[in-house]
């Protein structure tokens, strides 16, 4: 079958000089991107509208519009506007931020290590962030300091991973990933230990380790936003360098890219964004792994497109997954993403083997 396909392609090539069967010129990408943005908007409206009180989409849009207008004027909200703005929207916005951060970090990690199975959980980044947040919760630190604690632990985890995998001035990808798995496992064990110890807060912490957007408020959103914006912004600025790195370390260096510096910067920026993602909502698996692959299938591998589109797709996916968790017995967004992402991961493995 594969051979037949190849022959067909050759015939195509002979008959039409410009074989356009799989080309992706910019004009054809635009409709897909617009469709994705429509999905994002729809998922936001749906997630805000559905719940114990149903709010029709038209009313949701109206409430969003009235809220935006009254932001400056400090006018009082009323009726459904209160549900929209004070209960549902902060949770949805947190979902958008977390989904975007995890997906952008996943794409960046996959690119920088040229490993399709890389994601924010690699290198112990997410496990470190989760441990930092758990320490903060169990110790009863002020809620606004939790992202900082998550970031500090995430960086410490990355530092440990880098130190363990270092060979001279270089960080070979295989050693890096192995060290990351070990560091991540050890840190997760610490997190579990802390949960078992902190009985009074156990319910909250347990929900946290399974991934939960239920505790998010506007204050949390404002606290994590800078980490997310700076982390993702730096990664997107490095898109062209990440593209060049796909040709291999030596080739990238011959083209003038300082490869080790690039790796370090990507790891730091991705740690900041991952810390933002896990600080208040915990471990949400597979989003960072799955979303970049889906985006690559449609939009191609160029990081200038891949990173922003992954952000949008990841945001939409997480909001929809959270909606599913609120409205079904699955109850937690981390459970939903893992149930959806696991089979995809297996498909990815099987596909890699057949190539």
């Amino acid at each position, binding site marked *: 079958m594969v051979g037949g396909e190849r022959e067909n392609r050759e015939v195509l090539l002979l008959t039409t000089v410009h074989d356009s069967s799989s080309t992706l010129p910019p004009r054809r990408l635009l409709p897909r991107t617009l469709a994705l943005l429509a999905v994002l908007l729809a998922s936001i409206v749906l997630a805000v509208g559905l719940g114990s009180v149903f709010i029709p989409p038209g009313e949701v849009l109206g409430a969003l519009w009235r809220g935006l207008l009254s932001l400056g004027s400090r006018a009082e909200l009323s009726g459904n506007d209160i549900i929209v703005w004070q209960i549902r929207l902060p949770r949805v916005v947190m979902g958008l931020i977390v989904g975007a951060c995890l997906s952008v970090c996943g794409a960046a990690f996959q690119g920088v290590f040229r490993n399709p199975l890389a994601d924010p959980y690699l290198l112990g980044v997410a496990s470190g962030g989760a441990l930092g947040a758990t320490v903060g919760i169990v110790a009863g630190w002020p809620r606004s300091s939790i992202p900082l604690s998550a970031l500090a632990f995430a960086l410490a985890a990355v530092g440990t991973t880098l130190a363990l995998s270092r060979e001279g001035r270089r960080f070979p990808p295989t050693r890096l990933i192995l060290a990351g798995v070990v560091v991540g496992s050890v840190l997760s064990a610490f997190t579990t230990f802390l949960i078992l110890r902190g009985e009074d807060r156990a319910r909250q912490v347990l929900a946290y380790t399974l991934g939960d957007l239920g505790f998010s408020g506007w204050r949390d959103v404002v606290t994590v936003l800078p980490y997310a914006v700076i982390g993702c912004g730096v990664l997107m600025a490095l898109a062209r360098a990440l593209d060049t790195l796909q*040709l*291999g370390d030596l080739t990238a260096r011959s*083209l*003038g890219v300082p490869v080790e*510096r690039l790796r370090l910067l990507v790891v730091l920026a991705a740690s900041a964004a991952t810390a933002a993602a896990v600080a208040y909502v915990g471990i949400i698996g597979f989003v960072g792994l799955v979303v970049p692959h889906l985006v690559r299938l449609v939009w191609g*591998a160029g990081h200038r497109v891949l990173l922003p589109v992954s952000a949008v797709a990841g945001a939409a996916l997480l909001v929809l997954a959270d909606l599913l968790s609120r409205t079904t017995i699955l109850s937690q967004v981390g459970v939903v993403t893992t149930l959806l992402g696991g089979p995809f991961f297996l498909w990815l493995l099987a596909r890699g083997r057949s190539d």
Partner: protein
Amino acid sequence: MTEIQDIQIQVAQTPEPQTAEPQSLEPQTLEARALHVRAGTFTAVQDVNATFPAGVFTAVIGPNGAGKSTLLRALLGLSTPERGEVRLLGRRLADWPRAARAQTLAYLAQGEGLPDTAQVRDVVALGRGAGAWRWGLIPTRPWTDADEFAVTDALTRTDTLRFEHRRVSELSGGERQRVSLARALASQPRFLLLDEPTNHLDLAYALDVIRYVRCEVAGGLGVVAVLHDLNLAARADALLLLHEGRVLAAGSPAEVLTPALLHTAYGIQAQVIRHEGRLVVLPQG
């Protein structure tokens, strides 16, 4: 172990540069001077002197572990020599700014990885290089018509323009290698260093690659290629035979491809015959 050292490659006649640029006074060469390079714990390249002129196709040959790839990386400035130096156009390679070096020296790695889902034209555009970027990481100047022209030119010269919009995953091995060659040519380099460019290619594709490289050499490009296949290497203008990190012989194919030298380097008994004006190496047994 051998007394044959410190031999400079002597090339009989350097073709006239066909570029319109005025001839400058700097030597049009890439040069290794008393080069020692460490690879891990041992010295992989020892006391290598060699001159690679522009407009000449030099093949670096030698058995596995002779230091061919290590030499190539040192010539590119990708590894720091322990002793000795590399000179590019008469100037120490270490003194070259990153941007200028990346534009002047192009490299085609062994089995270069290409992103499967990327389009051919986008891959070749990466060859325009990061040299002039801020910190080598962030593009600071806009993409110009000159960039676009250089990419189209590189695609044309490797005959890859007709599938510039296809994805890499749909290409055959030979087509991929030509795309990589186009990527390397896109920076309009003065010297191109290739590490086993014909590895894993069917003979027809391997000859293709050599043919395209030959065209560039005729246009004034200096080419240094590590080659395993001695019969392909026989098509080069000059050969550099490495053995245990040292230069065993250098010169024209007729001077280097001799039964005695092949026996010393590879430990084989081989006949070298001339067929239709070309040398052919026939290993015995």
